[in-house]
């Protein structure tokens, strides 16, 4: 039991280190968008997701509607449903409803990737350990980023606010290099987002992301369907 928990904690360490830097960027971004340090940390603690949080902060900064917020989170985070679905097949019998309600909170791309690669069934203590370390990295990184954003000169935080987007690029490019279908969908999504921004300025940022991402993914799925083997290669 205890052993399972610490095994999870250990497996979570590499994820934690990655999260520290991404959430640092998120913390800086929050301050640049005039959110408080408390709000920045509050968002990270309650959400534990990168893309959804960035889109959420943009909606908050633009005083968007709550409907926009719900739809935006739904589209951006829909992949977690699939991951939960997949993990639900690997749970040990000791996973009661209560444990499922708690562990469900912590399903992220990276935690899913590690958990789904385990050979043996997933136990509650292992999953709590695997979620705890990345959670601490994510929350602590946000706090440091927000404090840094608060005390550093504007010229430095302006440059640092590029970090998060640069990391998004670093996530997209390697798979797009390997897979032409992913490259096409990525280019289409970027093009649609740019066109909406300049030609349809009445559409707010949150909805622009929803429309661009959904349209490009549906076009991708219609014209370049992905086989089960190809999907198996990706973490999600």
């Amino acid at each position, binding site marked *: 039991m205890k052993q399972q928990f610490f095994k999870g904690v250990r497996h979570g360490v590499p994820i934690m280190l990655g999260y520290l830097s991404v959430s640092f960027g998120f913390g800086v971004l929050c301050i640049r968008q005039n959110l408080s340090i408390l709000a920045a940390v509050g968002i990270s603690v309650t959400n534990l997701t990168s893309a959804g949080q960035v889109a959420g902060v943009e909606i908050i900064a633009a005083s968007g509607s*709550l409907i926009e*917020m719900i739809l935006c989170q739904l589209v951006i985070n829909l992949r977690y449903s699939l991951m939960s679905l997949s993990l*639900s097949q690997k749970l040990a019998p000791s996973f009661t409803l209560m444990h499922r309600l708690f562990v469900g909170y912590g399903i992220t791309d990276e935690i899913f990737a590690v958990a789904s690669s385990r050979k043996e069934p997933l136990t509650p203590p292992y999953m709590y350990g695997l979620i705890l370390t990345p959670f601490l990295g994510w929350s602590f990184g946000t706090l440091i980023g927000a404090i840094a954003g608060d005390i550093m000169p504007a010229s430095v935080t302006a440059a640092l606010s590029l970090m998060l987007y640069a990391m998004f690029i670093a996530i997209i490019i390697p798979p797009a290099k390997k897979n032409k279908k992913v490259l096409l969908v990525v280019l289409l999504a970027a093009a649609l987002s740019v066109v909406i921004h300049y030609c349809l300025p009445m559409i707010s940022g949150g909805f622009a992301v929803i429309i661009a991402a959904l349209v490009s993914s549906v076009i991708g799925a219609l014209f370049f369907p992905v086989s089960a083997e190809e999907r198996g290669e990706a973490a999600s």
Partner: protein
Amino acid sequence: MSIVAYIAVMAVTTYLIRVIPFVAVRGKIRSPFLNSVLYYIPYAVLSAMTFPAIFFATGDFVSSAVGTLIALVTAYCNLPLIVVALAASSGAFLTSLIV
């Protein structure tokens, strides 16, 4: 609208998306179309969020564009996330000192 309301709605939505399939749904999604959409969505979302927003990130087009270019090149070379991020930020910062 209060910031607490935004954060609460955001957190509850994200939580329900994760936990409902975990608790309720059994079995696998079989539709190849739906599976393909779900496969593409993360990449499409990140791309749509990055462009054109990255060009306004620093508040100045020139330094943002330099940072973007550095990010694209370093990412193409498969450098780690943190290296890409720091290289892009440093490039943008140095540019803002010159321009």
